[in-house]
């Protein structure tokens, strides 16, 4: 499903060049639930950004679900990301002025994946699946952190992408809620989704099928 060959990423900063990733070779099969761990600044999030097309590698080749991500244009990348990748962030990043259901419908709206009249039903199904169906008409600010993260997961699933990428999804949650989120991820993996989760959470190691450790931009 995900293939990285000799992927490197260098950032130019006022203090000089900084190598965030160095010659990474990695292969992740369909349906795998992978935890990416490592110290702060080791390059975990950069790796996730490369795979999700949020950032481009400086060199190497990258293929996700058969698409050569680094060759896609700005707009192609947006459309591809909308259909192929579901993102979950540490700070949820829900749009504050849209209700929970509307937040989930937004990706369908952008990508036109479902007929208009079916979007609301799908959003409700997804919200119920992650356990916040009864919050559908509330604004994100009215929800707890755990609930907001569930909504973010529902949103990530909106266009039924094969890959879910999560960057520290439980970094802002208590341990009980974190455990629930990981259980939810486990179910998604069981349904055939490929999950890549950057985390510091010890809970993760018990839930995932593989752990990749990154140190100084390399796979340890």
């Amino acid at each position, binding site marked *: 499903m995900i293939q990285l060959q000799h992927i490197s990423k260098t950032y130019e900063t*006022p203090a000089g060049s900084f190598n965030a990733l160095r010659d990474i070779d990695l292969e992740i099969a369909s349906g795998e639930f992978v935890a990416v761990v490592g110290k702060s600044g080791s390059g975990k999030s950069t790796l996730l950004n490369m795979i999700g097309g949020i950032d481009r590698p400086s060199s190497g080749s990258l293929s996700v679900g058969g698409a050569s991500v680094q060759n896609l244009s*700005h*707009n192609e990348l*947006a459309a591809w*990301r909308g259909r192929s990748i579901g993102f979950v962030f540490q700070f949820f990043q829900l749009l504050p002025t*849209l209700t929970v259901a509307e937040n989930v*419908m*937004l990706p369908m*709206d*952008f990508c036109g994946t479902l007929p208009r009249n079916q979007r609301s039903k799908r959003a409700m199904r997804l919200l119920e699946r992650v356990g916040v169906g009864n919050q559908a008409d509330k604004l994100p600010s009215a929800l707890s952190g755990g609930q907001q993260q569930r909504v973010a997961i529902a949103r990530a699933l909106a266009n039924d992408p094969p890959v879910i990428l999560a960057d520290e999804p439980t970094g802002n949650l208590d341990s009980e809620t974190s455990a629930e989120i990981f259980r939810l991820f486990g179910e998604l993996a069981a349904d055939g989704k490929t999950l890549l989760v950057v985390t510091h959470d010890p809970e993760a190691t018990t839930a995932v099928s593989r752990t990749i450790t990154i140190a100084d931009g390399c796979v340890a």
Partner: protein
Amino acid sequence: MIAPRWRKVFRDIAGTPLRTTLAVAAMAAGAFGVSMILTSYSILTRELKTTYTDTCPASAILTLDGAVTDSIVATARHVPGVSDAEARPVIYARVKVGKDQWMPLILFVVRDFRNLRMDRFVPDSGSWPPGDDEVLIERASLSVARADVGDRILVRTIDHGERPIRIAGTVHAAGLAPGWMEHAATGFVTWTSVLRTGVESQQLRILVSGDRLDEHHIREVAKRVESAIGKVTRIDVPTPGRHPHAAQMDTFLFLLGAFGALTFALSAVLVVNMIHALLVEQLRQAAVMKTIGASTRQIASLYLGQVAILAVIALAIGIPLGISAGRAYAGFCASMLNATITNAMPPFWIIACEIVAGIAIPLLAALGPVWRVSRISIHEAFSNGAGRHQFGTRAFDRWLARITWLPRPMMLSLRTAFHRRGRLILTVATLAAGGAAFIAALNVSAAWTRTLDADARARRFDVQAGFPRAYPIADVARALATVPDVAHAEYWAESGAMLGDYRVSLIGPDANSKLLDLPLLEGRWLKPDDDGVCVVTQSIDSRGELTLRINNRTVRWRIVGVVKELVPGRTVYAPRRSILAASGQSGDLTRSVRAVTRNHDIPSQVAASKAIERALDRAGISVGGIHALSDSRKSFADHLVIIKSALIFAALLVVFVGGLGLTTTLSLNVLERTREIGILSAIGATPRTIARGVVVEGIVMAILSWCVAVLVAIPITFALDAATGQMFVRSALDFFMSPAAVAGWLLLVVVLAAISSFHPAQRAARMAIREALAYE
């Protein structure tokens, strides 16, 4: 059902009422300013033109050597190309307005009030037509006569003593210059009026058929009339379609237009600023939408849609208010110019242009920031301080960082102001655009006042009197010797002449006169031993030799200098003896006197003019007109009222639009910094420290903008001085930077900056830290 992304747009607008209000207020202020000026400009341009042409002004006025009889009028009417001809005798009289106080009164004798075919006027109040012992006064000169409809006024005709007549009513004669500006009353009397004792017209007015705006055609027809009736000594062709005060109106309308453009520029900068502020806030949300699949086009259309909605709301407020205010201002100006507004609606295309511009400009202004927001990489948007350069990466930042002697909170304010360079530039540009327009408006106004003062200083006599016929200088001098207030008097030669097709005034001051010191534009002034030379005013374009026709004789004088005079008439100054010789006048006779009084203040001038008139009366010398210099100055100042009103109006408009812009811009600046203010609170800054810091930052921006405004005002003032001076007095005004304007704007901008940053700063400082840190 509305798509969720559009619901986001509506909720963003409704969910941030303060920000939306600020943005809409700024845009509406811009739309108001532009709409107000465009409305008044378009109404006045249209109405002033039609008000004048509707009077059917005479195409040409032929002056005859003798009276214009009915048979001459009939002959003229049959000349091919003549649509109509008429003789309208004029009685030059004076009206008593107080004890020993008389004002000029020009009375037109009308043959048939019920059949006015040229130089028309319409009833305004009272009865129509007047009786033989009545007069109809032009409505704009009623105040000059200091009387009301129904009052009896005492009229003194030049040769026939005094007679009381009743004011039957007022009329509106749109083709005449407003009496209150000219300091002369105008009226209309019947053909058989008691005042018309032997007064016949020497002037024949003709109205041409065909193109009445073609001066060449008019002159050809006038020449044909001259051949048909003979005895014509002069042909005057007023510039077709030009009101007597067209230069004043052009200057005024030009100023309106110029400040319209400046207000437009100001509002455009304001809109750019506002939209920039709105969109910078949306960087992170745009990135989230991109992450979940939104394309650049989709994001761009969302934000452009948001801007369009705000623009429409702003237009819905700004345009109707602007049109109402513009109509009111046009009404005020029309009353000043003695015009009537028959249609107070701006043309449809003006409203259409306002709407199109009101939507297109914000959209164009938004293109840059929208492009940036929709193209920004997700990685950049999510990183800390998205869209901003890091402080310290620029040389200026490092220089700023070396300023360490200031108190730390002050240092923070300074660095913060300069950190967001784009924001700073936009804020300063908005404030500077307003400031430059304000300063320029007051500069030009001050330049006019100074020009007026300089002209008054150049004339060092206090009272000037004119006589209807020539009197021996010795008689006049004897009469003046009885007036203790008079210190010195001079008897200059005066005459009229034709320069090509135009009439010019000839004035010959005494050889050693010190009473005239007009500013020189070229060459030199007259010398005591000069002969056959002259100095012309800026209104005469000729250079080198001047060929004049004086009483059917041709003289050629060498032009040795050009002077600047405020009254934009064509005047030729020549040595007294040259004028006497050319006009065949005697050096012992005079038709005017210029007197210097012992005290030069206004009450002394007025008292002296009354005393002089009494003395001349006693000596049997009939006075055609007498006025103190202060009165001439006042008359010209009254001509400037409308121009100054345009400038003050522009300055006030700029203060309103710019002030609102400043308030909204600085308030938004503070809103953007809410998170940062939260951090400051978290590390121990008191609300007072924070508010002070933000106010300092606002003042720094205000002072910076003031510096830019002063610099930008210089070329604008130069351009406006040159353009309005050329239009009105045919010479650029002297450049003047008004200290009051410069200091006034500094004070205004600093006070407004302090006020407009203080409130939001205090609000932000009082916000709970958690809330401030979570602020999106």
